[in-house]
């Protein structure tokens, strides 16, 4: 399975990754507040990830790492 890793503490909750994801994998965690005081991004639908890395390409803070499964 494809794997997404987030450096959650560096997320500023801008949501650019959420909008760019073609499979609606990501969402901002409305019930979580990170160290910076933002709602960080989280994978709500990780099975749908196709490892296109659009989210990581768009992320201004480079917090997303994308791994393609076998």
């Amino acid at each position, binding site marked *: 399975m494809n794997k997404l890793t987030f450096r959650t503490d560096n997320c500023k909750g801008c949501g*650019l990754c959420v909008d760019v994801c073609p499979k609606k994998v990501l969402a901002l965690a409305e019930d979580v507040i990170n160290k910076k005081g933002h709602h960080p991004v989280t994978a709500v639908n990780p099975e749908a990830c196709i490892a296109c*890395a659009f989210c990581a390409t768009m992320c201004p803070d480079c917090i997303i*790492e994308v791994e393609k499964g076998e």
Partner: protein
Amino acid sequence: MVVFKKPHALSDVPLHYCPGCTHGIVHRLVAEVIDELGIEGKTIGIAPVGCSVMAYNYFECDMIEAAHGRAPAVATGVKRANPDNIVFTYQGDGDLASIGTAETVHSAARNENITVIFINNAIYGMTGGQMAPTSLPGQVTQTSPYGRDVNLCGYPVKICEMLAELDGPEYLERVTVNSVKQIRNAKRAIKKAFQNQIDGKGFSLIEVISSCPTNWGMTPQAALKWIDEKMIPYYPLGVYKDRSAEKKEDEQ
């Protein structure tokens, strides 16, 4: 298999930019290019004054902080003293197109063998959203609350068009980073700008149309749309000068 991870040349320091600011994307593109060309050990970056003043914290290569607007002058000195090193400057529009216009124009005219990354977001970000030389006609800022009046404040400075008139510069291109497609295109342009320097071709400047959600008073998403709707019609994307390509055409 890792498809995407943080480039090595980008440090672990959290970026201080506002949420959704595209400075971070351009930082990463520069770092990716440094990684791909394998030049991290011999690259020297020049940080400007402006939002990206702390760029020296974010790159793993050697960095120098220049006085406001003087990055191309500092880069000229560094490059001439260390011709084997790769020297790039990273500047915003308040730095490059305002206080540092003279340095920019003359380093381009001299065709210094340096790479300039120019972030154009049409506003002064760090000082709180005042009108910049690149602000669009009619654009509302802190110092133009009724919109930029061209009769009073004049017209915006188009750096790529202006420098393209000179015989000096090797490569001038305007790109943006408001979508995945455009980000990939911007990376290609930045890579070419560094490659030109490695090949000893001369002055390369990449103007990146960026967003400033905080000072434009928009969400990050709306700011990216505003680039498409307002900025690109005024600042058309494309290659403004490519002397190598021109030479090839002449030969054919």
